[in-house]
């Protein structure tokens, strides 16, 4: 039967590495094989229509004004729109700070986990996964409660200054902290997948034997091995922070996503145009990431593939990493 399979299957020269798991089962009756093909085409066509229509019609919506014909005013007006640059700059700087903080926290913890007692690994994993159980809106109610303690209980103490500084309008540190909490699960998954391909104890031991200091080991030995999963974690965090709305809007700040909503009332076309642009940019980032992760350019190919799958959840889908990576996008949805 197995010998029959290729003959009846591939008049159109199937590439040898392409996965064709189910076809052998359909071999005995040729008619049965043809039916699923139509079914498959129909499913993919409907899905393609459903997923492409909003994108295409969003674009049509932004460039076609009834009665005026084609115009690109919605796009050309973005840069000069009130508050656009400020909110985008705020979002980008928040993203940079969040990425830095998240990596600074998670990388040493994960390296310590590889070297330390097994119990530590369980603790770190639980701590990093807990934010998945708490929806962003629940986290923000908790944060808002804590922030109210400032004026209520600490207004006469030096701690009050901390409360004010954390909520500084021009750079709200509290958002960095909240976003870092929300990003912990992704960052942990991405880096953990990357570290899985690296034999940390041996590397550390070897480097230490050669006389390297602890900091040197982390910076020059461990991190270069993690380059692509670090990039993956950073991109995912960037996408999360750029799209984050719940926490920022409920705490009363105005980064990018909140700005889009605030202009939507007066400038419907522009808000759709900005949404479309921010989507395309996010997607481009994710695509670059999945290429970078799976490409041969990555220093450690195995680590690259793993982190690419963990990051975009897209590429090396045959690995178990993808299944475990798939939950990653969840909280970003908020």
């Amino acid at each position, binding site marked *: 039967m197995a010998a029959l399979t290729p003959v009846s299957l591939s008049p159109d020269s199937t590439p040898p590495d392409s996965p064709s798991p189910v076809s052998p089962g359909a071999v005995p009756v040729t008619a049965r094989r043809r039916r699923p093909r139509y079914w498959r085409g129909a499913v993919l066509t409907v899905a393609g229509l459903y997923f492409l229509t909003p994108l295409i019609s969003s674009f049509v919506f932004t460039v076609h004004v009834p009665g005026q014909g084609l115009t690109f005013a919605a796009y050309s007006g973005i840069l000069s729109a009130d508050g656009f640059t400020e909110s985008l700059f705020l979002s980008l700087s928040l993203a940079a700070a969040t990425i830095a903080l998240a990596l600074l926290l998670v990388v040493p*913890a994960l390296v310590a986990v590889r070297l330390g007692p097994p119990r530590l690994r369980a603790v770190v994993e639980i701590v990093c996964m807990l934010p998945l159980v708490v*929806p962003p809106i629940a986290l923000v109610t908790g944060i808002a409660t804590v922030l109210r303690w400032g004026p209520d209980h600490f207004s006469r103490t030096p701690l009050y200054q901390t409360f004010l500084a954390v909520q500084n309008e021009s750079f709200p540190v509290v958002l960095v902290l909240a976003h870092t909490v929300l990003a912990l699960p992704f960052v942990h998954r991405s880096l953990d997948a990357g570290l899985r391909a690296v034999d940390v104890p041996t590397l550390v031991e070897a480097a230490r034997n050669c006389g390297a200091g602890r900091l040197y080991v982390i910076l020059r030995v461990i991190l270069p091995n993690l380059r692509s999963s670090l990039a993956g974690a950073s991109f995912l965090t960037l996408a999360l922070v750029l799209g984050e*709305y*719940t926490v920022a809007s409920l705490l009363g700040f105005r980064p990018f996503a909140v700005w889009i909503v605030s202009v939507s009332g007066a400038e419907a076309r522009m808000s759709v145009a900005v949404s479309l642009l921010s989507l395309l940019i996010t997607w481009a980032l994710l695509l670059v990431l999945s290429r970078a992760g799976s490409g041969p350019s990555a220093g450690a190919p195995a680590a690259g593939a793993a982190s690419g799958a963990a990051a975009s959840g897209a590429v090396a889908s045959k690995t178990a990493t993808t299944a475990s990576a798939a939950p990653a996008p969840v909280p970003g949805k908020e």
Partner: protein
Amino acid sequence: MTVPHPSAAPGPGAAAEQGGGRARRRPSRVWLGALPLLVFAGLCFGLPAGALLYGAFTRTDPVAGTTEFTGEHLSRSLQGPYLTSLTGSVQLSALTAALATVLGVLIAQAVVTSRRGALRGAVLTASGVLANFGGIPLAFAFVATLGISGVVTELGHLDALGWNLYSFTGLTVIYLYFLVPLMVLVVVPALDGLRPQWREAALSTGASTGQFWRHVGLPVLAPSLLGGFVLLFGSAFAAHATAAALVGGSVPLVTLKIADALSGNVLVGQENVALALSLDMIVIAGLVMAVYLPLQRRSSRWLR
């Protein structure tokens, strides 16, 4: 890691450099690497969570300043409009998760059985990208498409048919946009694990395709499917931005109610009910995770 821990046998260099003290000191020092993360989590996650828990169970008298424990907020969060919003959220999440599970499996099966590697790569990449597409941009893309003056609405005169994006049905259509790709990502590895030899064996011993799916395919896939469903449920349940940008208050959802109560759009003194509602959400999300994690561990057996 199958490699034996080398620290048991420190090299001669290390021994010469630092002596035997290093081996003894090491475990405690390594532990410090995780300390910043644990402190951060305690401060930025534990503190709000504790405040939430405390606020949900206490009432502070504004005049006397006394605080007492009470179950009042929690019971109020399970009554009247709050209960409606909770059930609304659960219904919407369950419906969208169920639909997305079915559709996602169909698409994944179509991709997995396809012999074109390029198609598979394209669909998986697109799924990875679309599963990350949520929140505000998604809402506005659908407003431009199916909203009151949306392109498709006007082309198809959908408003005459009673179409309304700002409703339960509308939200369902939107949520599927990110849930279906997520399901595809979850289920493709599981479908890959379904060996063609099993199907071959079943068919050559006289089983029909239907029997194969009922007795072999679905039992093998069940943990993955259920795990995927639960994951989608949690994802839809926690979603707030899309609904907030879109429906305002016209669909009762618990995330919208919490946001309302928190920003003081309703009666004063509702903050504690918001905390209690958040606690309800955490309990439900926690149950979801408690179901999901063992299932995911079980289904991962079939992935290799």
